[in-house]
């Protein structure tokens, strides 16, 4: 399995790792059968000009190197984004930012976008 330098960087030193207490929203995806479980925590702040912004974001992931790296990368990509902007982040964006993923990993371990979107939906549902 050939991983890019960027993937190995994020795997060995992941960004924004851990949990957020009193998070505004939490999203969990994956299952133990496929081997990857990801949880994204977000804290949302209201900005007068931009509206709702992801102020803080973090992750916890049980999974292979690419599962950990994609989780780490999406926290970087989504930080300080409005909810609308964050909803538009795709798995391709994550893979591109990581300088590519091995083809087999594209779908099985690239779930971070779903976890992020779940966290945002969780926040929005709570406010309803």
């Amino acid at each position, binding site marked *: 399995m050939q991983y890019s330098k960027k993937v190995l960087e994020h795997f060995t030193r992941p960004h924004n790792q851990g949990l957020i207490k009193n998070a505004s929203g939490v999203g969990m995806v994956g299952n*133990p*059968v496929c081997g990857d479980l990801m949880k994204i925590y977000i804290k949302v702040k209201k900005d007068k000009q931009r509206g709702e912004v992801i102020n803080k974001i973090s992750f916890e992931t*049980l999974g292979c190197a690419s599962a950990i790296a994609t989780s780490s990368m999406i926290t970087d990509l989504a930080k300080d984004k409005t909810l609308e902007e964050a909803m538009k982040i795709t798995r391709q964006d994550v893979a591109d930012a990581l300088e590519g993923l091995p083809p*087999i990993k594209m779908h099985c371990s690239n779930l971070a976008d779903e976890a992020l979107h779940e966290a945002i939906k969780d926040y929005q549902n709570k406010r309803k």
Partner: protein
Amino acid sequence: MPNKKIYLDYAATTPVDKEVLGEMLPYFSEKFGNAMSIHSFGQEALQAVDSARGKIADFFGCAPTEIVFTSGATESNNLTVKGVLKSYYSKAENRGKKPHIITSEFEHHCILDSCKAVEKDGLADVSYIKPGKDGVVKVSEIAKAIRPNTVLISIMYVNNEIGTVQPIGKIAKLVKKTNKNKMENEFKTVFHTDATQAVNYFDCDVERLGVDLLSMSAHKVYGPKGIGMLYVRKGTAIRKIQDGGDQEYKMRAGTHNVTGIVGFGKAIEILKKNMPDNTKKIQDLRDYLIGKVLGEIPNARLNGSKIRRSPNNANFSFRDIEGEGLLLSLDMEGIACSTGSACSSGALSPSHVLLSIGLKAEQAHGSLRMTLGKYTTKNEIDLAVKKLKIVAERLRKISGSVLADYYSKK
């Protein structure tokens, strides 16, 4: 080992012993003859092949004519499944009568996939016996599965992932008893064992074992890659599956891999000489490793029986850790192991071996196989466990409580 990296994957392959390499070298460019040629070059090569064959036959307690050189255990296992069926169908009275094969769920893929291939082609029905939770196949389960038309039983001697030892001698007795009750012209059940992982440490005398066919690869016993053999008991119903020359008593066509065969013979000779000492030394180190890992790393378990186990094998599962990440992290620290996680192999589901002994998917994904060899030292074990502790802690920090959260939500 020459460098500072620590190799704990001896079940995958072993380095070629220096003495073995020395023995092989002249056969590349100086004594390069084709063992089938009748001139002096060929005779020189043939002599080397015969001498190696003799050493190997001596180790397995069989006649030299019962050793069939192949490219390795994968080929030997393919030859077993497909060759026995070929022999069965060569008899006019068997045409149109589908025979039956018994194997276990946790065989190597080369046996399982051969069985699936012949099933798919409609050539045989196959029963896959589930091993016990301890990783040992019960003889009674095999007895229950035997049918009047069972032509082949193939059970591995030592499992390659969890190192558990299978009751080959007892199964052989069962097969003999079954065959005794058959009519003279009936197709007898052939008993095969894949002994690839057993040869280093276990008695492989084919008379004491009572097997008809036995496979192995030289590269697992400090010999070269690309050479192995199938022991074929005289009179066993098996036919060649590869056409060409008359090599290997017409059982396996193809120019002899002379250098490989020479190396194979030397490796077996060295193995025989050092077997008792190495087995004891490696088992002590392995027990030390298991004790340390289970004692120092929380939520670790040993997979497979601790007693009925190959002296060089340790296979653990760590909760809240996934094996590919673990393997990669250890590799970055210079420690080479193996895992049953799907993610490491590009497969979609984790190790069929670990699932067959009742592990949950996440336990199989979180597995680590550490296999020792004759060059392993206590110092290496100490260092490996030290690094393993650090890596496990780091990965557990990353996974946090996701697994527990997942189950609490279900």
